[in-house]
């Protein structure tokens, strides 16, 4: 049973450029929420700052649009506070892999129960075209006039190395695939990364819709995402050799962050905790 997709429509004016890859991601999100039979109030969308991070404004669910690079910590706080909320983070490649790199690493270690979408357009959009951590080495940008000097960041391989329990890649040009990935990620107990290839039609003239389309291919049914060695090989496939889409790695047995904390696991959500000042008076014994 699906909820009415129109429930997720927001009447806020959209500030993305026409043709931007972000639209495909927005549509996939709505489709995924609707097909997962979720209602708007049951979902919290957290984001940082960037074009991608504006997503909470364009969809009717709870939203927390915080600081650049800091999408994950409020999501973690929210997850601890109310384990019943479905939490999704929408963020850019600069937001997550650049400014927010530390939180990316450590929340993978925590295995927090969220779905993390990275709109990976391989460029900084909102600040007008500087290189991002995933921009190819040598690519000329508005800032790197002689080409990017540093090697690109490999999000899939990094996430796997850190022990991420669900790592997927999708493409904003394929709404069906992406919405399926989002649903699978939301079903996953623990941290689920989806690195989404998202063309920035304004600032990235290299990685265009066509560039991605010519290279992406879907992992077939025989691909076993629990085979880590194979997954690492796929994690390193990129560019003219083809770019795999799908769940690259998944560990279904891993225990999520909240389930590692007995007082959360065995109780109602923290937000419903009942407490009166007098309940704390027993702690005075420590000081007598």
């Amino acid at each position, binding site marked *: 049973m699906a909820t009415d997709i129109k429930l997720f429509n927001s009447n*806020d004016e959209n*500030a993305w450029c026409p043709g931007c890859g972000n639209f495909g991601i927005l549509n996939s999100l709505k489709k995924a929420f609707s097909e997962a039979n979720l*209602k*708007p*109030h*049951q979902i*919290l969308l*957290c984001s940082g*700052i960037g074009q991608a991070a*504006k997503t*909470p*404004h364009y969809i*009717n*669910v*709870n*939203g*927390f*649009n*915080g*600081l650049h690079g*800091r999408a*994950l*910590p*409020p*999501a*973690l*706080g*929210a997850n*601890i*506070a*109310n384990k*019943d*909320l479905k939490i999704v983070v929408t963020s850019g490649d600069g937001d997550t892999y650049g400014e927010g790199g*530390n*939180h990316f*690493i*450590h929340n993978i270690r925590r295995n927090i129960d969220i779905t993390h979408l990275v709109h990976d357009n391989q460029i900084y959009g909102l600040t007008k075209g500087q290189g991002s951590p995933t921009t190819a080495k040598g690519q000329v940008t508005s800032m790197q006039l002689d080409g990017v000097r540093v090697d690109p960041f490999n999000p899939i391989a990094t996430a796997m190395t850190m022990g991420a329990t669900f790592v997927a890649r999708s493409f904003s040009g394929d709404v069906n695939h992406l919405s399926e990935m989002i649903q699978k990620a939301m079903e996953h107990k623990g941290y689920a990364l989806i690195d989404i290839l998202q063309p920035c039609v304004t600032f990235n003239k290299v990685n265009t819709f066509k560039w991605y389309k010519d290279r992406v291919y879907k992992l077939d049914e025989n691909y076993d995402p629990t085979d880590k060695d194979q997954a690492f090989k796929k994690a390193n496939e990129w560019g003219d050799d083809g770019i795999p889409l799908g769940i690259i790695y998944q560990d279904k047995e891993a225990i999520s962050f909240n389930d590692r*904390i*007995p*007082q*959360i696991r065995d*109780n109602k959500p*923290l*937000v419903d*905790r009942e*407490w*009166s*000042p*007098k*309940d*704390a*008076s*027993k*702690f*005075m014994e*420590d*000081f*007598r």
Partner: protein
Amino acid sequence: MKYNILIGGSAGQGMDTISSLLEKILQRKGYYVFSNKDYMSRVRGGHNFIQIRFGNEPIYSYDDKLDIIIGLDQNSVEFHSKNLKKDGVFLCDDKIKWEDERRITIPMLKIAKEIGQARVFGTVGMGAIIKLLSLDDSKIEEVFNEKWDEKIANDNIEAFNKGYEYVDSKYKPKKGEAKDTLLINGNQAIALGALAGGLSFYGAYPMTPSTSIMTYLSTKQNDAGIVVEQAEDEIAAINMAIGASFTGVRAMTGTSGGGFSLMTEALGLAGITETPLVTVNVQRPGPATGLPTRTEQSDLSFILTASHGEIPRMVLSVKNPEDAFYQTARALNIADKYQMLVIILNDQFLADANQTVNKFDFDKVTIERHISGENDINKDDYKRYEITENGLSKRIIPGKIEGVTVLADSDEHDEYGHITEESEVRISQMDKRMKRMELLKDELIEPDYFGVDDPETLLIGWGSLYGGLREAVETLKDDGEKIGALIFGDIYPLPTKLLEKYSKNAKNIVNVEQNFNGQLAKFIRQETGIHCNKSILKYDGRQLYGKEIVSKLQEEVL
């Protein structure tokens, strides 16, 4: 009669254990205890000391004249023997060199080795102190058994008895009256106040001297059903707390100066999203890494405006453990009521100073959440940032009301939380947020005042200088000086009634602060035009104490 004991040695010699047990024994015997720590930023070696003052009347400050020193290292002679009273006692191992008739040597290490546990050598000295003070040793076993398992407790009891037998009684303090008190330091009191006040989530990154708030709270996680998370950095810590608070739980974070600097961007996030947040800054001397284990009150000016842009905030400082307990619980209520940021200032001195205080009254603590439910809002058109008369709009918790969603944004936003650049909307949202500063005026607690009704000399201070100032005023008042002290807890917004009253006829207004710039005096002048014409400032990393304030006043003011 008050007695003053110093235990000095190098890090790793177990002084913390000896002193905390000694304090506990003294407290249980009915004495008022005040102890403070002076430690270096290293895990082994160096020279650290702890001073324990006790007596039959409340003690607010420490003192430098010593009755008894236990010297566990040679540095204890160099650093502290000059402060030993003429009839004092210097207890030490026979290996420590110092020619003086006040020295009493005890073969501490030898005794400890005979017991088969070299680490109990300090306990030998503790036994000697109890005997010197003619206190009976009846509470020892109880205290040792609470602390250790049987074997270690027994080794310590044996060491204690050996030390006890080694010396003769010298002092005869008046018997303490057994009272039901607590022995607690400032950070523990903050943690306990937070627990009483309904804290559910604390996120922090370790930084001396704030760490003990986190460690104490973490020991209560299961019992209280709360969550304490060690964040990957201070930026994560405060952002986590904001996310948790947005989602409806009482959340708090704490750090010291450097960590607070990292948090400043997120202070503004709490401000613009109108998310309740309590942040504790346990100050240490800066700048940068400064003196990690020492004390200072030099973050005030920074805290008053920390974060880019303008946000409403309340800043309060805590004066002693009792105050720290009630103020923390109050801060949580104010944060919720006004959907805003409250910053609590503590410092290393108070954070680590153990004091005897009356049991806290948990009936005096309330938990006021100010969260709206289904019937309080218009479900078809809910505006999280609705413009209202008093600037407060209805806060609901995401996920709690079917069919209603909440949107918060760090960008300037309209009443629904959507991003906007409209100048009128910007103005109305700014006005709305800042209106809280007006509302807060009804909440303010005036500073404490001690002294004569019409002071000629008015001392002004804040936070942990409470003890030293109070003791200084009591001493000078007894000497016939027309003196008084105002000690601020709430600082921003500034309560001004008592300030205006007592400053009117004062000939000298002296700010007494632990910083270089006289930060409170500057702020008072900015807010009220009242000018402190004299200053006593200390910024060597050590706390001003009662006698020191008295002598500085006598030299420079009176």
